[in-house]
């Protein structure tokens, strides 16, 4: 009885999160970045005002945590080709210049903070490695598309 009492709000909050927020985001990479941004850097707890207002804050936090881990594993299982497509979609939907994002991502690697806390280290390493490779491939493609410079 107690378990049901605790699980139902988390499930309901999770469903609500998928329906209202995550389904409106263009791709899995953007969903991961969004979910990672709902986590407090200092405490590691997740916050979402709207979700916490509709459900209990604990249930909302748990739902965000579950969704974060799930999307992380989903994205880490993508092939490199699929990940390059994800990156392409993410860059196209961004309001910033793709070249600027690419430069910053390669320099600062901000996607590192998008990794959930309790995930397998080998999978986390695979994810970081694949993102790094996807960025390099995307940059390579951009360079190939540019016309050669004449002196």
């Amino acid at each position, binding site marked *: 009885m107690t378990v049901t009492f605790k699980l139902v709000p988390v499930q309901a909050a999770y469903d609500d999160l998928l329906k209202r927020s995550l389904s409106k985001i263009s791709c899995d990479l953007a969903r991961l970045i969004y979910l990672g941004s709902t986590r407090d850097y200092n405490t590691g707890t997740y916050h979402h005002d709207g979700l916490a207002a509709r459900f209990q804050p604990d249930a909302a936090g748990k739902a965000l945590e579950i969704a974060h881990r799930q999307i992380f594993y989903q994205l880490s299982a993508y092939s490199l080709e699929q990940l390059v497509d994800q990156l392409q979609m993410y860059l196209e939907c961004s309001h910033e210049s793709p070249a600027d994002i690419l430069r910053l991502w390669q320099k600062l690697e901000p996607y590192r903070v998008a990794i959930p806390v309790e995930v397998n280290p080998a*999978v986390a*390493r695979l994810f970081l490695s694949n993102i790094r490779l996807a960025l390099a491939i995307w940059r390579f493609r951009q360079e190939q598309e540019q016309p050669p410079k004449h002196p």
Partner: protein
Amino acid sequence: MIGNPTALLLGSVLFLLLLLLARRGAAAREISSRSDVPLFDDEASLDPCPPEFVTRIFSSIDWDFVTCTKSRELQKLFRRERKLVALVWVHQTSRAIRRIMREHTEATRQSHDLHFATEIKLVAMYAELMLICGMLLLAIQSAGPQRVGGLAGYAQTLSQRLAQAQQDFKVVTTGRHFHRAGSA
């Protein structure tokens, strides 16, 4: 007295073991110095690597994709990156195996009715796994992860069997313990 062929064989095995030990130390140093993700000293909280990711790490699909770009730089980057991921996985697997055997040793100390055949089987499985992990470290560094997918998959299956065997042993011994406590 032992003959020349036996001495040669023993010498080769010893050399291989020493080489494996040396490479294992070197690989661990390489992982910790170049890997982005800490190796998580807290083993208890280690989430096991799902089998589909082992297939992904050692698969050649991504390599084929990178090869299509015909860029040497990208190919070099891919080889370096994927090698490190594979080494992290081997390191993690061998740690998990050692932890399972440590737990098993603890459990056997408290058990009064051990099955000799089961124990021998577990020790043999452990030795085989540790040898495979050593071989994987050598092979990944020399040939790359894409060439050893079969062996990695086998190590994953075998480590799951070892974990299951230890789990079964724990369930049986705990059951007996409760049964005795109830009878007393």
